[in-house]
């Protein structure tokens, strides 16, 4: 067995190789997606395709435990200088929507593959029905751009020009794709060279032992964390606002079972796959990285020294029923799976919060809208497409401090663009960009505030998209007596006679002089707001985070002449105490109203009905039952059957139970 000092040194060298790859890619990439949004990942894989090391400074956070075996195995006969690639969400389940293109390069030593250098870039466009290849309204994978199943992109060091020509013919910005792809190839070669250096330094046997040692170490660290969590099954549901444009909520359900140093994440009870692109393709992999992203955050939060690699996924087993939104069947569309993934993460945070309330924060805002504008520049008469800013909300209240304002938690990797740059490049004028008062969930530790952005446009027919909008209905929840946060919103001309609410819509068309207002949700509160020290509430009021009215209404803190009125505060808090409610979560009025009709039992019943239907009936049936639901699912089902005599017969025995 490898000694622990060598193991730690190998871990540092492996991370150094990954960091080197990340910086190389970042330096040589072409597109804004890679350069500014940092939507890329790189890693070192072992010969079985398991992630060994990832960078900590650059890139996205989703792939620290990814396994490439599904894609690797679809190519045989690797030779030195080969590079495999795929962007097909349904071949090998490494890529998870068409813009994400994954590459992997075997590293040989004496004729044997000793590891792979791998990574992904998010291409700006892969063709298909809409620019950027992403829209909630798409219904099947074929609309989401060209797909390349796992194949060799580079043969013995020579790029396959035919593959590149096919890509060039099918996508809208081929130069960007090819430039970024070449940059990623350069990074993989760098990584391979670094690995060869490690083998020369440490010897191949030590290197091989190190790969296993690093996986084992991460596994042991994960097991230690799980061992510190009380055994039990912790069940939680969270909802996305809409399952399609103007549609019904999507329920995600998780039963998290902790037993000793292992955990089972059972997502049974989550919605059937959707006739929109919100599906999350996971290929029945019990440790698929998209199912595990929330877990990465939980583990790292509980032990920031944990080694990030596939080893930490070993104690976990996920169950995501085939045909569900978390394990869709071909050819379900998957382009906007990032919206659902945000809910999936909050679902996991919520379940762990039930298990270890003393160590977990409340829900983060959980909706990072990427705002783009398509307009005409009046100065040049040219059309302009520009990313304005991500609108990200705050983190949830933490065990010992407030949630971070404006961004944080699982959205902390996003960057904004300076207003001065955007205004110079794009014909928009900002009216406001900042934090939204009273949007953080009240609590002993307040949730982080939402971000608000308002800008004016000057050209007819200016189109706005705000991808990933969610949390406009179902708020980020509070825990342990902390309140839910303010919901997100988008409207045109706020406060004016021609104000136009947009609900959960993610697109808008503006006319000259119109102002678009968009704000995210805030972070949920943690602990009873009545226990928040009045001086902190006063400070929040002074800083404009909380209004004086909310200080009184939500926190029971009465202010007079800029100071806390101790007596009035004590009295108000006494009066409020009995009305503070019970239970671990605070969901806010919208979910309470929804669950008054769709009780958890009723929704379980719905899920059972849908499960009993053939796959292609499920989304239709859900929509129609929702439409007719007045309190009893079976009544609604009967009404649907009456209206649609062709509705398939189902065995309702277990569904009705």
């Amino acid at each position, binding site marked *: 067995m490898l000694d622990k000092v060598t193991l730690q040194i190998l871990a540092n060298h492996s991370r150094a190789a990954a960091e080197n790859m990340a910086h190389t890619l970042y330096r040589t990439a072409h597109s*804004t997606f890679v350069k500014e949004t940092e939507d890329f990942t790189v890693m070192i894989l072992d010969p079985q395709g398991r992630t060994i090391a990832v960078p900590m400074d650059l890139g996205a956070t989703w792939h620290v435990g990814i396994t490439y075996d599904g894609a690797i195995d679809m190519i045989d006969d690797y030779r030195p200088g080969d590079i495999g690639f795929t962007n097909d969400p349904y071949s090998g389940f490494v890529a998870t929507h068409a813009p994400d293109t994954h590459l992997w390069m075997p590293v040989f030593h004496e004729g044997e593959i000793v590891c792979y250098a791998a990574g992904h870039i998010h291409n700006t466009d892969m063709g298909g029905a809409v620019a950027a290849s992403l829209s909630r309204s798409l219904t099947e994978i074929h609309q989401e751009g060209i797909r390349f199943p796992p194949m060799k992109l580079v043969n013995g060091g020579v790029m396959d020009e035919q593959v590149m020509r096919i890509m060039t013919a099918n996508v809208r910005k081929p130069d960007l794709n090819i430039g970024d792809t070449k940059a990623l190839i350069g990074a993989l070669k760098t990584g391979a060279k670094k690995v060869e250096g490690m083998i020369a330094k440490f010897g191949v046997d030590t290197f091989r032992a190190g790969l296993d040692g690093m996986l084992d170490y991460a596994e042991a660290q994960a097991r230690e964390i799980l061992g510190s969590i009380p055994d039990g099954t912790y069940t939680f549901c969270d909802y996305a606002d809409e399952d399609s444009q103007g549609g019904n909520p999507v329920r995600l359900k998780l039963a998290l079972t902790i037993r000793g140093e292992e955990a089972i994440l059972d997502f049974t009870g989550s919605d059937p796959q959707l006739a929109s692109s919100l599906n999350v393709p996971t290929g029945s992999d019990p440790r698929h990285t998209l199912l595990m992203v929330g877990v990465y955050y939980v583990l790292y939060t509980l032990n920031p020294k944990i080694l990030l690699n596939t080893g930490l996924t070993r104690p976990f087993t996920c169950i995501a029923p085939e045909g569900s939104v978390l394990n869709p069947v071909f050819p379900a569309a998957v382009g906007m799976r990032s919206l659902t993934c945000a809910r999936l993460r909050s679902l996991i945070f919520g379940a762990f919060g039930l298990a270890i309330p003393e160590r977990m924060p409340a829900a983060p805002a959980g909706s990072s809208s990427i705002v783009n504008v398509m307009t005409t520049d009046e100065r040049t008469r040219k059309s302009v497409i520009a990313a304005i800013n991500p609108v990200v909300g705050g983190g949830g209240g933490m065990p010992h401090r407030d949630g971070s304002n404006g961004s944080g938690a699982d959205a902390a990797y996003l960057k904004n663009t300076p207003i001065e740059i955007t205004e110079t490049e794009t014909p928009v004028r900002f009216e406001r960009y900042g934090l939204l008062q009273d949007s953080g969930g009240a609590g002993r530790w307040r949730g982080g505030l939402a971000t608000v952005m308002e800008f004016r446009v000057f050209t007819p027919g200016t189109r706005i998209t705000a991808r990933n909008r969610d949390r406009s209905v179902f708020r980020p929840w509070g825990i342990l007596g902390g309140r839910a946060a303010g919901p997100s919103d988008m409207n045109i001309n706020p406060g004016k006679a021609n104000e136009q609410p947009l609900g959960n819509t993610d697109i808008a068309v503006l006319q000259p002089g119109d102002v678009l207002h968009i704000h995210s949700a805030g972070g949920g509160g943690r602990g009873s707001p009545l226990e928040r020290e009045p001086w902190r509430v006063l400070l929040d009021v002074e800083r404009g985070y909380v209004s004086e009215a909310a200080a009184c209404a939500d926190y029971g803190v009465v202010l007079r002449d800029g100071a806390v009125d101790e007596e009035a505060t004590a009295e108000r808090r006494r009066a409020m105490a009995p009305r503070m409610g019970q239970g671990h979560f605070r969901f806010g009025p919208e979910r309470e109203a929804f669950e008054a009709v769709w009780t958890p039992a009723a929704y379980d019943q719905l899920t059972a009905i849908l499960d009993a239907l053939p796959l292609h009936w499920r989304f239709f049936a859900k929509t129609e039952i929702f439409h007719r639901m007045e309190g009893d699912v079976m009544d609604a089902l009967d009404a649907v059957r009456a209206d649609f005599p062709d509705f398939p017969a189902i065995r309702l025995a277990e569904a009705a139970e």
Partner: protein
Amino acid sequence: MSWKLGVDIGGTFIDFCAFEAETNRICTLKVLTTPGAPGQELGTGIRLLQDRHGVDPGQIDGFMHGTTVGINTIIQRKGAKLALVTNAGFEDVIELARLRMPQVYSLFCTRPEQLITRDMVFGIAGRMLSDGREETAPDLAALPGIVEAIRAKGADGVIVAMLHAYRDPSQEHAVKTELARLAPDLYAFTSAEVWPVIREYERTTTAILNGYVHPRIAGYLDGLYATLEDLGAPAQPLLTKSNGGLMRAEEGRTACVNMLLSGTASGVIGAAWLARQAGEDRILTLDIGGTSADLAVIIDGKPQFGTGEMIGDFPLHVPSVSVSSIGAGGGSIASVDGFGVLKVGPESAGSTPGPVCYGRGGTQPTITDAMAVMGILGHSDIAYGQLSMDVGAARAAIAPLAEAMGRSIEATAEAIVEIAISEMFVEVEKMAARYGIDMRDFTLVPFGGAGPLMGAFLAREIGCAKVMAPRRPGVVSALGGLVADLKSDFIRTVFEEVGPGAMPRLARALAELEAEGEAWLRQGQGFDGPALSQVTADLRYAGQSFELETALDPAWIAEGDDAAIAAAFHARHEEVYEFNDPGTPVELINLRLVKIGQRPGLETLPAPLTEAEAQPDRLIEVWLDGAWREVPLFLREALEAGYRFAGPAIVAQEDTTFAIPAGFAAKVDGHLNIMLEQEA
């Protein structure tokens, strides 16, 4: 006889480097700092220089000073209480920053508390547009009420930062003028006067840092003048700057941000100078103090510059010498986790309480303690006799770790060093990829108190061909001041597509920058020597969101040769990013000018080489590569030019210890640097 004196104040020591041109003499000294009364150590040191080396204060006609007073004010959060006046609707720009946070994997990630909290931010109506048109005049009528609020909260100064002020500073200026009328006792800085660059967060934050440290720096400079006057030194003091140059100390009162990284930057400048003397021009500098290791690269003799260097929790956006810092210093603490895996840092015992072996209250084992246990440290006076060493205490502190790991104490100590080195290796790999360089072509130059302790181990890890250990590694920053030029940066945001239409505007901007630079150098600095202007532009392809600084020939602008500018950018893009795109239009975001007043170069003549095997002072027991070994100990003062020896070896001197593992051949060059070469 006339002396030039370089003085650098760090966290633990104040370093002196005095140079006498006629006799080519260099004297150095280190004195412990007096944190309670910063500046007092200066008088002590100068008197000691007189006593020990005969440096007459009355003969000091050049005084170059670097100080950490600014950066410490920020790190310790002991600066002024400030208010910010900005556009209504944009009060949260400084809190939102650029959104992305450190620790992106943690649900507990947070941003630091701002230097100006939200209750001290005041938005007023008023709006400048991106093309320099004023849409709404600033609402000066709101200022009396704001002044009243500021007074109620007891601020010392005000920062004024308005959108697009880099384009036209008149709104900020109007607000500042009105504030001065309403409240002459409050000092004010506007964002455009501190650094007029596009990007509101970066510009505002830089102005805030400036205002935050202003009173302390001004007070510090008052003390400095008084001390020099007391000593009868005729020198007009100069300050070392973040950009590696110098400016008159008086300017530091208002241009405070320009000196925040003074010591760090002049260390790199000093190391570059030493390397140049020795004929080396591709350098990796490694400056290790108590809490951190600072790495910088010098490519073809030129330090690398950048913006966004972190000052404590905040990015500084004036041009600065690029330095990567990691939390691995002599005081970094070692621990063993529940799985028997050893970790080193980032927690640090710093200089107080410091390593256990220094007996100043430290209880947790550090890298320095590991070095003591290995027998590398403790063979000469430490810090000119101002510290003593207790190896037994170091062993006792490492013993529990050794037990947890099932290793001997010595083997554990060596493992601590190895882990720390591998942490530094990660940082070096990042730098290599960022600059696109191969570190095997570089010479590692270790300096600072602990740089020479770790330098050769790091060189072995990254494969640097050579290591160059300067004769006086403890005073490289102080030396950097002696060899620096007067230097200042000037910037205009232009934001135009490069083409014939943009050329008149560029010519105008360049003329303005040149006039500013000349005025700074000639009037501001009272300098009448030879001067140099370097012109660069921040360029990018239309649609890119990041710029690349590219050197321009001013003649291109004068002659309206836009094609030459574009061609220079295409070439630069290829060089840095390994591709270019000549078909795409090029945008010029900022035009920059660096004004340099060239000071007489400092030359030291190499000593003649005496080719000989160096004779050790004695043999000592050192734990290296897994065993106790009998290793020669050399005293640095006995190592003459031309002497050779081979590793493993230890070289002890009054301000540091140089550890040389096996596999290196050592030779002393004509400047008394010890040059190591890795044996193939």
